[in-house]
Structure formats: C-alpha cells, structure tokens
C-alpha cells in the first residue's frame, strides 16, 4: 500500500501533544514532521495487522483489539478499553 504524504495534517495537535508528553514548550518543526511520519506508519501498521492476511474491507473494534493483544502493547490496549468504557458510560447515562 502506498504511503501518501500527509504532511501537516497532524502538526497543530502533535505540537501540543509532544509538549504534553515531555518535549519542549515549542517543539522543533522538523521534529514534529518526523513524529507525524512515524505516527502515520504506526497507524498503518496497526490497521494493516488488524485487517489480517485476507485484508478485510472494514475494520472492527475486535480487529483492533486482536492487533494490540501482545504484551508490549498493553498500555495501548488498556487505553482502548478505557475509551470504550467512556463511550459506554455516556450511552448508559442517556438510556
């Protein structure tokens, strides 16, 4: 699959996130660009894996869950379950 150039799509938010996670108050622009490239690669990898060997047409939560099931991804998996919980919380509050 082609890896198109997404230059700048995430810059604004990435700057703030990188600061939030420990970078300087004003992260360097070229650093942010590299972070974006790494990020895009990560997203593509996870979703490619999630789709499985017979690439599915549509990804489900279960697919993502499976893709993040290895130990080194525990933090990311936990975050996913937490986000699902927050959605559920909202849903139940409305019911």
């Amino acid at each position, binding site marked *: *699959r*082609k890896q198109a150039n997404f230059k700048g799509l995430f810059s604004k938010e990435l700057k703030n*996130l990188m600061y939030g*996670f420990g970078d300087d108050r004003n992260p360097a622009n070229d650093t942010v660009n590299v972070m974006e490239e*790494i990020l*895009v690669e990560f*997203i593509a990898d996870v979703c490619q894996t999630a789709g499985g060997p017979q690439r599915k047409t549509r990804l489900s939560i279960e697919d993502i869950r499976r893709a993040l099931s290895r130990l080194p991804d525990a933090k990311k998996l936990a975050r996913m379950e937490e986000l699902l919980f*927050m959605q559920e919380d909202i849903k139940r509050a409305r019911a």
Partner: protein
Amino acid sequence: MDSGDDEPVATQPAPVIAAASSTSTTVLQPGAAVRQTGVPDEDVEGEDELLPAMADDDYSAQLSWQSESKDNLKVLMDNFSPAQYERFEAYRRHALPKQAVRKVIQQTTGQQVSQPVAQIVAGVAKVFVGEIVEKARQVQSQRNESGPLTPDHLREAYRMYQAETGRVGSARPVRGKRLFVR
C-alpha cells in the same frame, strides 16, 4: 476538527501520566487485568454505528477503577508545580483529529473504518506518541543533550520501540519511500 478528548473532566487514562518537566513520572498501573469484553463484532452498516455494547461485569470493573483513578488524580494534580500543571493540561486537552486518522487508515491500508473506530484508533495512537516522546527524552538524556527534541532523538526512539515490541506485524513493505529500516 476535534481538538479535545470527549472525556469527562476528571477522568484520566489509567496507566499513562505525562512526564512532567522535572520530577519523576508517576505511572499508575491498572489494578485489574485488562479484560476481553467478549462482545460480538459490531454489525457493519452506516457511518454512525455505535461501538459494541459492553458487558456489565466489564463495565463495573472499569467503573471502580475509574473512580479510584479520579481520587489518585486529584492528589497528583494538587501537588503539581505550575509548569507541571500546564504540561498536563496540554496532554489532556489535545488529541489527534479523528477525521485525519480516518483518512490515514483509508489511504494507507485501503480499508474502511467507521467514525467511532477511527476515534478509538486516534486515542490509541495518542498513547503511541507518548511512548515515542518519552523514549526520545531518555535517548536525549543518555547523550547528555538538552533542549527541544530533535528528529534524531525520535528516530532512535522509534528504533528502540520497534526492537522492544517487534514490528506490529503483517504489514507488507510499502511501495515507495520506506523511512525507517530496521
């Protein structure tokens, strides 16, 4: 474009706290093991499809964990320096725009994703950004360097990340420029 997490104000992600500028990073480990919710795959139709329903057990487990987290968070935030507080707010308030994440998924893998699923991927990807930035800071400090992180710090961090976690997997080599070769 979304600029914030859709989360209740006091909630914070269970195992992740942003590295504050000076003092040690406190990481709260989840008390309960992460459970599989065992729900069937959602029916695939429509842009606004909801996420799969959560089982009551899992919901209660998360609920008590969340409430414990809220108390811990309050203690933590009460002890922040102004710089730490500012940094933490930046971490909380910002998120990857879900439409952009959705576009990335669709254009790089050719797969469709619903908006709710893209939002989940965006949340997970945010954690990934944190893992890379934290590692990059370690790389920087090992080299006795300071100041804003450089692309080289990030690349080294990403290399370390890949070595530690193994490539996510069956991703086939992309045509065209491959940025980071193991």
